[in-house]
């Protein structure tokens, strides 16, 4: 950890302490108004973010295809009576290569299933005053499930039956049987590789301490169950929250949180690295008393390598100075759904009446697109790491951010003036890990789950092991003071067979059957080294 902090310090000195301002140019979408639940996700499978709008029984997809001039395609959806009135989420829950949608409306939640040519409306009759909706693989079976916050009653969870059908089952992800559920953000807050959930809650008129207004943190137990752990984590805020942004604001390898409140004060909660958080709002330069923002999200708009805060506060942008302080910048345009519509590596956004294109700067960047195989196709729930001279940056692929929006499912990192990336790591929800060494900057890297482990790619040897073939104990070389954090073992078919939380140098392989294996070991900076070995 100390090493990482040192990197942060160097980075700051290198680039100065004040963050670069961001500017946007506006372009209308032929006069069509975007629902305030903005959708900035690729809908046609080209991995370039589109803008999606809903009007009555039609959906319009503005295919940006990397150019500034949008072409649109209008889909008429038979029987659609629902709209994304309160929120929208996207994800390929029927696993056909095209993103489907989830509309959170004021009396129902509905799915809009794509097949690449058009859409089918799948409604549920059960009343729900929807707030934030998400696609997420709740039980980690490789299929996307769904969740919808309920303003006035217990929230709804939907289990994917594996054939692309959602089954409403409140016991699938059982939350408290009370209302006040505003925004669910699915994030791995304790770095155990499992996606947890933070629930922002608000209930006007409810007295202090009422469970309808106390934010909850559901820790994933890894067996399909979750345990509310907010008190231990210091995250049971009760100031009336509409949404919370999770990001690694200080690039120390864990998810921090910015809680946007409607009353009381906003809270910047620094992740202590041990599953607990500390309120450091007072030292961040963010106005804790500027309450009332429904929306809050995090993204690196100036590609300086530090994630900024995007909201409806008086400063719509709080630019990250890189030292856990922020500089406010007002935007006349408000906020919206975030994506890179012109594919220039700088994040744009879409809000009520058009698209705001980021004019960019000279900073370098990388865009990562993924395709899950064992995991859900979108890789929702994946943790992506980018290693380089800055240390480590992390992102998570999430469906449903802020209070209402659906942001890009692609992953964008800014790397400032750095010109080289050491390693890109994709930690899939399945437990699989894919590695790309030295990916190109200012380009897109596409990662298919397991592809970096495939038989054609195993001619790598980043680390030596002894003995090889091994019977019982495999020792990592060299035998100097180098420490490794963890080891992952795949079989020759790319199937994960063992995981060992070291730290250390020796791995017990006696339980493995005979054959050739791929070994990934993670060093203390989070980078992976790969080799193959033979079990006798």
């Amino acid at each position, binding site marked *: 950890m100390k090493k990482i902090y040192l990197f942060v310090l160097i980075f700051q000195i290198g680039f100065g302490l004040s963050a670069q301002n961001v500017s946007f140019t506006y372009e209308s979408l032929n006069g069509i108004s975007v*629902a*305030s*639940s903005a959708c900035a996700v690729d809908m046609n499978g080209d991995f370039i973010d589109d803008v999606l709008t809903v009007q009555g029984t039609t959906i319009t997809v503005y295919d940006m295809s990397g150019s500034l001039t949008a072409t649109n395609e209008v889909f008429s959806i038979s029987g659609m009576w629902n*709209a994304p*009135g*309160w929120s929208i989420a996207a994800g390929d829950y029927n696993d056909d290569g095209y993103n489907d949608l989830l509309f959170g*409306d*004021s*009396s129902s939640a509905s799915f809009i299933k794509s097949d690449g040519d058009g859409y089918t409306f799948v409604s549920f009759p059960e*009343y729900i*005053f929807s707030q934030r909706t998400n696609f997420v693989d709740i039980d980690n079976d490789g299929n996307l499930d769904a969740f919808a916050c309920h*303003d*006035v*009653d217990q929230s709804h969870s939907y289990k994917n039956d594996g054939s692309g059908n959602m089954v409403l089952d409140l016991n699938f992800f059982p939350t408290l049987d009370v*209302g006040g559920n505003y925004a669910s953000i699915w994030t791995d807050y304790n770095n155990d590789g499992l996606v947890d959930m933070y629930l922002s809650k*608000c*209930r*006007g*008129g*409810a*007295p202090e301490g*009422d469970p*309808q207004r106390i934010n909850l943190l559901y820790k994933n137990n890894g067996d399909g169950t979750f345990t509310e752990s907010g008190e231990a984590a210091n995250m049971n805020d009760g100031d*009336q929250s509409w949404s919370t942004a999770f990001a690694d604001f200080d690039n120390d390898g864990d998810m921090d949180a910015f809680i946007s409140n*409607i*009353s009381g004060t906003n809270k910047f909660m620094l992740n202590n690295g041990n599953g607990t958080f500390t309120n450091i709002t007072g030292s961040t330069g963010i106005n804790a008393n500027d*309450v*009332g*923002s*429904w929306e809050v999200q995090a993204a690196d708009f100036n590609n300086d390598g530090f994630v900024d805060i995007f909201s*409806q*506060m008086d400063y*719509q942008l709080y630019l990250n100075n890189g030292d856990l302080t922020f500089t406010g910048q007002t935007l006349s345009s*408000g906020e919206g759904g975030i994506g890179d519509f012109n594919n220039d590596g700088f994040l744009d956004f879409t809000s*009520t009446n058009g698209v705001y294109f980021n004019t960019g700067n000279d900073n370098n960047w990388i865009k990562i697109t993924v395709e899950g195989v064992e995991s859900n196709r979108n890789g929702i729930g994946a943790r992506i790491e980018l290693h380089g001279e800055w240390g480590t940056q992390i992102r998570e692929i999430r469906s449903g951010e802020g209070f*209402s929006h659906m942001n890009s499912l692609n992953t964008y990192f800014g790397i400032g003036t750095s010109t080289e990336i050491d390693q890109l790591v994709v930690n899939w929800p399945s437990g699989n890990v894919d590695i790309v060494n030295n990916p190109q900057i200012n380009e897109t890297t596409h990662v298919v789950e397991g592809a970096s482990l495939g038989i054609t790619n195993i001619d790598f040897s980043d680390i030596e092991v002894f003995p090889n073939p091994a019977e019982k104990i495999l020792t990592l070389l060299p035998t100097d003071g180098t420490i490794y954090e963890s080891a992952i073992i795949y079989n020759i078919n790319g199937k994960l067979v063992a995981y060992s939380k070291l730290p250390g140098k020796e791995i017990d392989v006696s339980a493995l059957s005979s054959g050739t294996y791929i070994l990934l070991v993670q060093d203390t900076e989070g980078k992976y080294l790969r080799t193959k070995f033979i079990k006798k």
Partner: protein
Amino acid sequence: MLYLLFPTTNFMKYFSAKSLLFSILIFTVISCSSDDSYIPIADDSVDISPVILDLETVPYPQLSDYNFFEGAIKNMDPVFGVLPYELGTSLFTDYAKKKRFLWMPENSSAEFDGSENILDFPTGTVLIKSFYYENVLPAHESKIIETRLMIKKETEWIFANYVWNEQQDAAVLDMSGQNIPISWNENGETRNVNYRIPSAAECMVCHKKNDVAYPIGPKPQNLNIEFSYDDVEQNQLQKLIDAGYLTNFPENLEETIKWDDASADYESRARAYLDINCAHCHSTGGHCDYVAIRLNLDELDLYNVGVCMEPISHFDGGPFVINAGNADASEMYLRMSTNAPDAMMPIMGRSVVHEEGVQLIKNWINAMESNCE
């Protein structure tokens, strides 16, 4: 011969036959004098209301189980003890018409608890409100959609919603909520709504104060109007006293201005409208109490009502909640004029814009001197 002065039999429901003669005599006296003081009769032989209410077992499965009405239930003819009433200004619910009644157990009465608070009702009180449309298409019939009860138990009010059947001869308890599409003809124009019958949880969004269930309508000022009891006009609060349902109310109590009273000024009408349509959430302890505006009638500071107040968070086109002199750039007006779920106000209880109500708010705001900056 005197009986002919009271030709309708319905009158009998409110006063027992035995007390009628005395009432008539009193009526004769007060008709000829300016003395409005009226002392309720303590008469042991007063009829007993046939309403059936056991607080241990309510809510009953059927509306008819309470025996609130006699004859065909769809006529909603109240039995003895069930008093009809209206509100000076009532809440907009997708143009539904409403019939309201209240009932209290024998020998119990409500207390006046300040002009801005609902009456302090005794345990066992039932507030009854039926929602219906006239000229419902295709047959141009009246159709009752639902009857909502609020029943005051020992410690809390409970909700009970009864959904009417197609035959309009029964209404069944249903707390799960549902949508009913309705088309009807109003003044020669066809209107359509997807009427929402609320679930228990939805009821609680508006009907609460500090998260405790609470009626909204029966504030003394809002009841302080004349009502035609079978063609006999009488002040409703006085009527409650006469029926033994209210102990007293102050003589100088103000009367809520009717929102659609064209002879009244915009401000009084708009404030009455906001009070009944918005203040249950936009007041201390209400669902939206974290938003600074206070829309209850007794809020005297117009800034707190929203005049020149900045919205809690950015609202497109509305730099002020009420932009004095400019309704089109007022968050309040814009929210009331839209059906977009995340922008519309109120957030529930309507699926269409109340054109006439919104016009009133527009006129009120536009008539203000512009002074927001």
